[in-house]
């Protein structure tokens, strides 16, 4: 007999020993027949079959997910979602049916003991009083604890200041527009007065300023000078009938991105800027006044001028604060 044969015999011996131990263990662990705790229930093979079918279905969906994922079939993420969703849905249905139809259940009610035993309450009061007997400076301790609680509460509330400037509203008035600043387009090319036609509208920004600054974007249009009816003091704000207004709606701060320009004015609504969020409508010819919608104040107007080279420049700052109204800003 060689080495291998002996090793095999030894392995067999060890296995038979382990088997014997397992049998013995199982024998001791197996419970004796005892009285039932849970009432016996009728077996229901139909529901069992349903649960088994659902579980198998769930498995199929899960396998489908793996197959779709592996095949990357038409890159359909919807199918992936459908497969894994179906698997979970079937699994959930199986669990619901199992819990309702297969697991034996019973309803039990137990009377609660009466709440509030007077003797017990007296006891508790006494215990609390006695545990505090070592403390001599009770008021001082109470005050310190109160201070800790108050400070913690304040610490939780204070970050709310990040929501917006509460006391310091100075930043809301910030505008990058100054007298002499040129109007440029999205790519930074300066707008010339001759670029502005009277059939459409243009979005402009101040030269060399971040476009994301709230007061930076403006809308520019040209209207027939005869139609202009600007508020007093704005007579020279619209050279050649070219007008500029903040592009930020004074209602909720959306970009005023719609401009209606009638092809035949006599039978059409008048020209107007329209905000697509809540349809606030502003009349460019009358200083950006609100002609419809929830906006509470006019679009701030930017005075313009045309320099010797024909470029459009701001002639000053806006007529009012830009963006949605806030405390203290009503007109």
């Amino acid at each position, binding site marked *: 007999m060689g080495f291998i044969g002996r090793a095999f015999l030894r392995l067999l011996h060890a296995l038979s020993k382990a088997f014997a131990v397992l049998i013995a263990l199982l024998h001791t662990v197996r419970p004796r027949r005892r009285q039932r705790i849970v009432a016996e229930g009728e077996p229901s093979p139909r529901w069992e079959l349903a649960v088994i079918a659902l579980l198998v279905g769930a498995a199929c969906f899960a396998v489908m997910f793996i197959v779709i994922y592996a095949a990357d079939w038409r890159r359909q993420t919807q199918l992936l979602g459908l497969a894994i969703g179906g698997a979970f849905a079937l699994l959930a249905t199986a669990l619901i049916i199992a819990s309702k139809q297969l697991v034996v259940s019973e309803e039990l009610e137990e009377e609660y003991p009466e709440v509030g035993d007077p003797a017990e309450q007296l006891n508790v009061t006494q215990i609390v009083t006695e545990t505090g007997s070592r403390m001599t400076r009770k008021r001082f301790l109470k005050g310190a604890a109160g201070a800790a609680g108050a400070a913690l509460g304040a610490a939780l509330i204070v970050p709310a200041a990040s929501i917006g400037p509460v006391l310091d509203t100075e930043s809301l008035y910030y505008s990058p527009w100054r007298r002499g600043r040129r109007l440029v387009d999205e790519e930074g090319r300066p707008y010339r007065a001759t670029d502005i036609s009277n059939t459409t509208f243009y979005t402009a920004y101040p030269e060399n300023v971040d476009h994301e600054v709230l007061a930076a974007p403006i809308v520019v249009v040209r209207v027939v000078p005869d139609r202009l009816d600007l508020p007093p003091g704005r007579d020279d704000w619209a050279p050649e009938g070219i007008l500029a207004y903040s592009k930020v709606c004074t209602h909720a701060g959306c970009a005023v*991105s*719609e401009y209606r320009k009638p092809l035949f004015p006599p039978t059409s609504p008048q020209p107007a800027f329209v905000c697509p969020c809540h*349809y606030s409508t502003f009349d460019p010819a009358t200083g950006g006044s609100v002609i419809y919608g929830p906006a509470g104040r006019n679009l701030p107007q930017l005075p313009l001028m045309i320099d010797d080279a024909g470029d459009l420049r701001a002639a000053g700052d806006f007529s009012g604060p830009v963006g949605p109204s806030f405390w203290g800003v009503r007109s």
Partner: protein
Amino acid sequence: MSGKASEIPRAPGFTCATAVAISVVVSLALLAQPAPGQPPSGIVHPKNQRGMSLHELGEQLFAGNCASCHGSVGQGIENPRPNTGAGNTTGQGPDLRGVGAIAPDFYLRTGRMPLTSPGEKPERHAPFFNDREIRALTAYVASLGKGPPIPRPRPHGQSLSRGLDLFTDHCAGCHQVVGEGGYVTDTNVPVLDHATPREIAEAVRVGPYLMPSFSKRDITDHDLNAIVAYVRHSRHPTDAGGLGIGHIGPVPEGMVAWAVAGFVLVGVCAVLGSRLRKS
């Protein structure tokens, strides 16, 4: 303001389909009632068209269907006045001398003209004339004055990303970023699903009704090709990661999430729980 100024615009996307359906029904109802003195269809088609030259046909169609508002020689009518041409409508309409072929081709091929009354909003409709009639009318209007020809956009092979950039800059404010339309106060903005490349290019140059118009200085022909390419692409976006739900933004998506998922969750709770039986 037109007579229908009481129509309150609603949130975009929320009832887009409903609004379109309503406007179609309303326009059909309006069209169903021809103006007094006009034939039942409201449109005059000359008899014996085969024997007419294109110019003659155009002239006759213009006199019968357009002159009451645009004037007998297309000179336009600034102030409303009782009509002396076909029908007895009070005419008012723009001067057509010098609009070229581009505007009549757009308005007639999209069924926006003729209107029943001058105050009516021009909306997309099946064309009221056949192809030869449209060509005749377009040629006739173009002959009234020197004006731009019909554009020939070439969207094939254009950059979609450039088109998207231009579309968001110039068009998406009203037409929504995948061309699903929307509203401006007093009218609705058409969906671009049915517009042909030629109609898109024409609309950009003409600026129909309340739309701004864009010169070649504002949007070059090359850029216009990219816009047309993008609009065509936007009809079938890829929708990676889910259903498009009308491509009208977060409102319908939120409604689906809340209405559908919410009801499903409540239903599951009802199935899971059971009522305590009081003895």
